[in-house]
């Protein structure tokens, strides 16, 4: 056996994934090896290898690089299990990365050279592989879940089944290589079940679909266990339900198809029959895979190649691009070139340069953007589970999955969406089909999750076709809580806004309304933390729409550049309500100190930025001052600046160290001339201004004196 395996590994190392002849040789070596292998897991691995190779040879492998990687993993497992760890690996170790296949991840290459030292399990190499495995397995499971959801509406989608199958198949290969027993068992059984589905012997719907969903969940837990173990070094408690789940999957796999011809028998004998079916008879057995191997167009897009990049490096790149833009504009606007650049070659080249820099800037910004698809898929899964639990059949529709959003936003908006969906399902939709029928609606409720681009931001909407908000109940509650004076006339909008107020717990409200709005203030806070906004729109008896308006990215904001003394600051546009150049008559003071401004409908306090931030520089003429009216937590105030320089999109920079802790300043900005400007944190600024009359005392006294001395 050792020799055959040796030759097999050698053949592998000499073969490239695109080399048909080489693949056939490899296949041949595999067959040679088969009779010499005694242990069942080895046979199993060989069978898998054979299947994968067949797919590769026939050109039907949906993802060649991945398949090829799994071949390598399989071979590694063989080497291990055959106790041939010392099998000349050092000699071959470095090769896979070279002539082999560029797609073979580096960690796997190291694994080859790592095998000769079986004495050192759990070493750094193992750790790396495991970490990689966790990430990869999660991706596969997410993909599988997405396809399962699509199967729910259309059980005939063979390509979806194939994707799910492939996910479990790949995980099995890796798990066996990494000696993750329960994962291997679970994936093997699920794979068997899915295999019969692939052959059309089983329809993945109803109970079977639920079972596969369960398998995905269980697998996710197992993956999480691996991760925990990596982090803490101690294995988590064993999953007690796993055994029964595997049994149920086995039963499902053998049950319905037991009578059919060519049914996959119990696991131990599976290898033999599969080997016979697919490998020996070659092409003949493959037809069942033909539809599966041709992925649907949309599937292809989700398999786009991607590279995992260290976030710091990405930031660095984006920083440099920003600098390039500044340098470019400095060159193109430099006085030396003026006149020269208007005509001729230089002018053309400058235009070209300008175009390229802008494009670079756009790409730089888009690097951290990801489609909302995975997020929506998670929500689809959630609503599926919830609708089962609440016994409210619901049709879940998503649109705009391809819209991209900053990854950081995706992570934080997920919780808000979960909350809104749960609300919609639990309280938004009618209690039961009976109630819906009475309202003249179809039995099945409808939930829609949409993403659209709108005016430079992203709008995510959660819409249900349920009861709608109960205006009267909310108003009554608002009055009871003292949030609304009794007898006040409010528009629907104003009333609906109440549900986002903290403390607007509806636990005691009329049953029909009960629960709705609980925790919506939390949702609002989290959305606002992302510099977004939440709105609600509702029609009694027709449904409710929650609308989240989010910035495309957290890295960029719209800001107003203002000048105070010699310093320039940026006020985020979202917190500005208006800009005014007040007439003397509109201004006044309170107790000789506090400046006031009367706007049409209210009187707001004014704060001098120069005092708040202790800025040096002689005061400009009072008449030229501009008041930036800002709003925070419903309260307005005016910031007095010397000049408004204009509005622009701004890339937020960290100030380094922990200078972000400076009250009133939320970050830095590189201004168009290359200098650093500071972003004002309006909320913090107003807070400190309100609590200290002599605000100047608050901010670094010594600096003030130093500046005065200058």
């Amino acid at each position, binding site marked *: 056996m050792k020799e055959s395996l040796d030759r097999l590994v050698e053949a592998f190392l000499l073969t490239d994934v695109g080399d048909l002849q080489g693949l056939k040789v490899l296949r041949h070596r595999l067959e040679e090896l088969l009779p010499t292998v005694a242990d069942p897991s080895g046979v199993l691995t060989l069978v898998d290898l054979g299947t994968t190779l067949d797919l590769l040879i026939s050109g039907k492998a949906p993802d060649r690089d991945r398949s090829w990687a799994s071949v390598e993993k399989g071979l590694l497992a063989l080497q291990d299990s055959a106790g041939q760890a010392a099998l000349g690996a050092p000699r071959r170790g470095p090769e896979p990365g070279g002539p082999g296949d560029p797609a073979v991840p580096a960690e796997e290459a190291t694994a080859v050279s790592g095998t000769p030292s079986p004495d050192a399990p759990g070493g750094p190499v193992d750790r790396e592989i495991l970490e990689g495995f966790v990430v990869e397995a999660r991706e596969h499971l997410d993909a599988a879940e997405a396809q399962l959801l699509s199967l729910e509406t259309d059980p005939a989608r063979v390509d979806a089944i194939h994707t799910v199958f492939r996910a479990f198949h790949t995980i099995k290969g890796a798990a066996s290589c990494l000696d993750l027993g329960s994962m291997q068992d679970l994936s093997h059984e699920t794979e068997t079940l899915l295999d019969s589905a692939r052959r059309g012997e089983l329809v993945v719907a109803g109970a079977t679909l639920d079972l596969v969903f369960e398998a995905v969940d269980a697998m996710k837990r197992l993956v999480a266990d691996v991760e925990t173990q990596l982090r803490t070094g101690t294995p988590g408690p064993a999953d007690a339900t796993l055994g029964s789940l595997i049994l149920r999957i086995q039963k499902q796999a053998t049950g319905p198809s037991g009578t059919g011809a060519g049914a996959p028998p119990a696991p131990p004998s599976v290898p033999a029959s599969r080997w016979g079916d697919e490998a020996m008879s070659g092409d003949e057995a493959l037809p069942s895979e033909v539809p599966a191997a041709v992925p649907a167009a949309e599937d292809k897009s989700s398999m786009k190649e991607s590279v995992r990049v260290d976030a710091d490096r990405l930031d660095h790149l984006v920083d440099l691009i920003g600098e390039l833009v500044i340098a470019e504009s400095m060159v193109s606007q430099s006085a030396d070139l003026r006149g020269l650049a208007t005509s001729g070659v230089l002018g053309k080249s400058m235009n070209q340069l300008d175009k390229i820099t802008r494009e670079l800037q756009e790409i730089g910004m888009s690097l951290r953007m990801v489609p909302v698809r995975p997020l929506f898929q998670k929500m689809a899964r959630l609503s599926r589970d919830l609708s089962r639990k609440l016994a409210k059949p619901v049709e879940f529709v998503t649109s705009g999955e391809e819209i991209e959003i900053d990854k950081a936003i995706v992570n934080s908006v997920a919780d808000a969406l979960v909350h809104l969906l749960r609300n919609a399902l639990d309280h938004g939709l009618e209690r039961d089909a009976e109630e819906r029928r009475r309202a003249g609606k179809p039995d099945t409720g409808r939930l829609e999750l949409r993403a659209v681009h709108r005016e430079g931001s992203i709008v995510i909407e959660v819409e249900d076709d349920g009861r709608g908000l109960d205006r009267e109940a909310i108003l009554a509650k608002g009055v009871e809580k003292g949030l609304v004076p009794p007898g006040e006339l409010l528009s629907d909008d104003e009333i609906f806004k109440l549900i986002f107020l903290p403390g607007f717990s509806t636990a005691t409200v009329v049953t029909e309304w009960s629960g709705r709005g609980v925790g919506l203030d939390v949702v609002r806070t989290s959305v606002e933390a992302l510099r977004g906004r939440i709105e609600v729109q509702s029609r009694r008896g027709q449904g409710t729409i929650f609308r989240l308006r989010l910035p495309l990215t957290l890295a960029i904001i719209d800001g107003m550049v203002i000048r105070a003394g010699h310093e320039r600051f940026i006020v985020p546009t979202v917190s500005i309500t208006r800009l005014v150049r007040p007439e003397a008559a509109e201004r006044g003071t309170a107790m000789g100190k506090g400046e006031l401004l009367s706007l049409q409908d209210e009187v707001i306090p004014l704060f001098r930025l120069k005092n708040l931030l202790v800025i040096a520089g002689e005061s400009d003429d009072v008449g030229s001052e501009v008041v930036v009216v800002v709003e925070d937590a419903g309260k307005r105030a005016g910031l007095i600046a010397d000049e408004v320089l204009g509005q622009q999109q701004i890339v937020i920079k960290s100030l*380094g160290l922990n200078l972000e802790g400076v009250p009133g300043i939320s970050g830095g900005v590189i201004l168009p001339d290359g200098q650093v400007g500071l972003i004002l944190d309006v909320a913090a600024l107003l807070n400190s201004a309100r609590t200290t009359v002599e605000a100047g005392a608050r901010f670094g006294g010594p600096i003030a004196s130093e500046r005065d001395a200058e």
Partner: protein
Amino acid sequence: MSETTVKGTAPRAGATAGKYLTFGLGDEVYGLEILKVQEIIGLMRVTRVPGLPEVIRGVVNLRGKVIPVVDLRKQFGMEAKADTERTCIVVVRVWRENQAVTVGLIVDDVREVLAIVESQLEAVPRFSGGVETAYLLGMAKISQRVVMLLHVDRILSSTQLGALPAPSSEKPATEQDAR
């Protein structure tokens, strides 16, 4: 880049032989381990950040990255001096609370890179008048001149920058408080 030279906040017997970048502050000459120096840039306009300790003059744009700059004269309690043509910023990369951070140091002028050998090294003597010897790694005597070798990690550690106001803290600590 976590060399042993970068770590080790425990008091050391003295500096080690090696290359040092020297710079001047008034009449005094200081040395920085060359491995910590990232680059030297001319003085540019510094954006002051309200509420920071006095020793931090503000922040500058280092090729798209915003870094804080420390006024070394202030840090050492020396009298302030107007910036000149020769004033520049030495950008160093140091370890602070287990994190590598990039900081600029404003110095009067940059001199040269010296290869200092073991025999030139001397221990830090006790000074009178409250000189902060913790900032010194050691001293080197090179043909009559004395070069003070800086323990740069300490300069930027808890004594000064660590006293920055925390986001939640109500009272921003002033520089005086920090001492």
